[in-house]
């Protein structure tokens, strides 16, 4: 498997994603947003950052980039897509995932470690995770407060499309463990087919014990397991 890490003007987690993928043995190429080609077996990564400075609205301009048509087509034929932080915002703006990311309830940017619990194992990104074990992964965002109407949230929960929830170190989903006010502590959601994931936390930062932990690698390893490649 190979990864295509998208670079929009203002993206800054691209090099971190490349590094994290290296740690689990996945080679990647960086794809400038004006390109239009994505290979069918590639894992598409929309990395974190402030695409177009977050001007207008997070992700609102990036969704019009030329590469996004290819991303839509890739997802439609079952290809894997993960959007992290600003990438999640772009996927929501592009209509590829339900809901929106609003300003944090604190009205401030937050950079800190949080804990995540896999809520649904019905996706390549989560199938290899242990739902009883909390993953320690950092967040870094000002607008990560997940919102959707109740009917949408009910539907997401009923169909196994809540990928991750914020929890405490023991795995308990509590209001105190919610860093940004997201409804129902939702940290990541899946599309209907389960091949597109959006999440606010940064697994690519929790990729090396020397940088404070490597819990994030479990997500990449899960993808590798799902496509039948053994992880490094």
């Amino acid at each position, binding site marked *: 498997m190979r990864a295509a890490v998208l670079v929009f*003007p*203002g993206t*800054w*987690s691209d*090099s*971190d994603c490349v*590094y*994290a993928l290296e740690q689990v043995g996945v080679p990647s190429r960086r794809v*400038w947003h004006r390109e239009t080609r994505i290979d069918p077996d590639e894992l598409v990564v929309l990395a*974190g*950052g*402030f695409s*177009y*400075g*977050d*001007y207008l609205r997070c992700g609102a301009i990036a969704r019009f980039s030329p590469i996004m048509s290819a991303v839509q087509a890739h997802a439609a034929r079952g290809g894997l897509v993960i959007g992290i932080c600003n990438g999640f915002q772009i996927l929501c703006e592009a209509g590829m995932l339900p809901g929106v990311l609003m300003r944090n309830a604190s009205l*401030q*940017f*937050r*950079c*800190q470690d949080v804990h995540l619990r896999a809520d649904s194992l019905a996706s390549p990104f989560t199938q290899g995770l242990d739902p009883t074990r909390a993953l320690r992964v*950092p967040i*870094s965002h*000002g607008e990560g407060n997940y919102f959707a109407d109740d009917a949408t949230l009910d539907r997401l929960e009923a169909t196994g499309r809540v990928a991750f929830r914020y929890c405490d170190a023991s795995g308990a989903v509590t209001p105190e463990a919610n860093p940004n006010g997201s409804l129902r502590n939702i940290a990541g959601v899946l599309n209907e087919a389960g091949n597109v994931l959006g999440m606010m936390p*940064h697994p*690519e*930062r929790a*990729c*090396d014990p*020397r*940088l*404070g932990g490597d819990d994030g690698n479990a997500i990449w390893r899960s993808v590798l397991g799902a496509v039948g490649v053994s992880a490094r």
Partner: protein
Amino acid sequence: MTVDDHTLAQVAMSRDEYARLLDLLDREPTEVELGMAGALWSEHCGYKHTRPLFKHFPTTGQYVLTKVGEENAGAIDLGDGWCAVFKMESHNHPSAIEPYEGAATGVGGILRDIFAMGMRPIALLDSLRFGPLSISHNRRLFKGVVAGIGGYGNCIGVPTVGGEVQMHPAYSGNPLVNAMCVGIGRREHLLSAAARGVGNPLVLVGADTGRDGIHGATFASVELDEDSDQRRPAVQVGNPFMEKLLMEACVELAEQHRDWIEGLQDLGAAGLTSSAVESANRAGTGFELDVALVPRRERQMTPYEVMLSESQERMLVIPKREHLDDVLALFRKWELHADVVGRVTDDQMATIRDGDAVVARIPIAVLSDPPQYDLEPIRPAELDRLHAEDLEAHPDLAPAEASAAVLRLLGSENIASRRWIFRQYDHQVLNHTVVRPGGDAAVLWLRGTSRGIAVATDCNGRFVALEPRVGAAMAVAEAARNVVATGATPAAITDCLNFGNPEKPGVAYQIEQSILGLSDAARALGTPVISGNASLYNEVPEAAVLPTPAIGLVGVIEDIERHLEIGFHAGDTVVLVGAALAQPAQTLAGSEYQALTLGRAAGRPSIDLGLEVRVQRLVLDAHRRGLLTSAHDCADGGLAVALAESCMAGGVGLRGGSPDLGARLDAALFGEAPSRFVVGTRDVAGLMELARAAEVPAVVLGEAGGTVLAIGPVALDVAVVVETYERALPDLLSGVDSE
């Protein structure tokens, strides 16, 4: 042209300086020439009052690659072909007027200094000073500055990993906002900011030029007064998104196409004027620049305005002629405007045209030769009075009040947890950050190697005010200790010299003595000055700021997997290294405890640089031998606060027993004598033996364990300590005004 006082005041040029300009030119300057000379001869650009003292700085050392003054920032060698560049710069006056944009553009400016050298910025730090947070205006400035730093750094994607903030009444109305940036890269990718190669084009890239920030350099060179608010147009507005594109394009140029360009220079204070003149001066060339070719965002700008605009996010590139098209294409790929605005000449003149008309033609030598003033320092008489004050005469702390006093310090605005600040900063992006904010120094890993760097900023203005030469030396020593506490060897420093009006004899004394003290310590500790910045005229009508020579220090770690952190581990023996437990009352001079109990600073701080060097070497040696499990500098708030911080970081208590704390309980617990560390060890005998051999005092304090911090009469549940320490700043910032 008849020059009236108003015109001269606008460019902050005195009558005498104007006469000097007439003399050098042998004619009257044009309007544009006067503006250019005024900006480059300003204190901010020309260092008129401080340059003569720079000769005292040690500037060479085993790590130094690029010396101070040679380029936009200094560079040090990290080994294996890697190097680091770093610099600290002030953005005080803009932040006093417009805290968000002032701080944001301060960050933007220091970033450009670093990537202008072809290096990738990997760390930002901020040294901040405000008036007391009990006053709503200071809280507004504080929150605005923090938001501005975060707004710029988070968006551009460079982590803000450290810094410090102190409050003191002397900074009310004139906050200090000093931003430091560290960049890394390969030695062969280091760029120069020189306009070499006659006939090579000058390319202006980035933002369009507007009227923002005109006279910004001048504004930074006068005192703030009631009318300063009307200077708001002199404050620039930042666009971190544009700068992100500029940064990527410039780093790509350096890393992949070093051979395409001769020079790269940022546009900072005095905009096009200073960047073109400085780069020509560096190369010994001249330049011709046509303002009509400069893309603008406003109509009907005059040549004067174009040359002095401080619009942000612009760079001047000097490509080799044959690679002009390649360079333009690279910037186009990054969706940036780039335009040829002039060319390098061999006449050592700055020639500015507006289409066909020549609007300025002035020798580079005149512009690069600002007047220099010898300071006229007079030692303020009050220093002798303050030194003579008998600190032993103040009543000692009662043992029964010791625990409450520890909590009071931990909850004070100068010591309380900075989490409220740094959780708003992305401190991890780029995956280099090993030790996050909250420790003694940030540690960053040079991925792909076993090495790392440690970075800290420091300065306690109260010490400097009491005895400038000693206080400045203490700032260098503390920065070095912070870096040593992570296991790093101090390598070099940058300084940001914040003072009041240098024309006042008392301030002149502070400046001169501080530079001497800074040099004393830098020489003793082997940390040469590789870059710096001076910010004078930090005064409001009421008073000047505390003399604040802020120090940024970078150290080198050989093995990143063996760095040290401040937290205790249960079972470790805790040792105070560098001093005995008992301390005289004189060590309270300038301390936080004194400020809280006496309401002012008095006494005479002191430092023994010989001991300082021995102590730092001992800690590094002990670490090399694997004797240490934690290390923490003992500074603000003294021993008690250092112990509390190590307990909190480790989530463990201290069984400190009842050692002999000497005649002064307050001094033993809260004295701020320098040259001390609190360390954890599993080999007490080995450590004590090493200390004896190094002639460094060391005393065992107890064992880390349990949930209570106990030392002498102090007994505190660590959970209570955490609660006090963490809640203080959020509470203070949401607090009710006590004006």
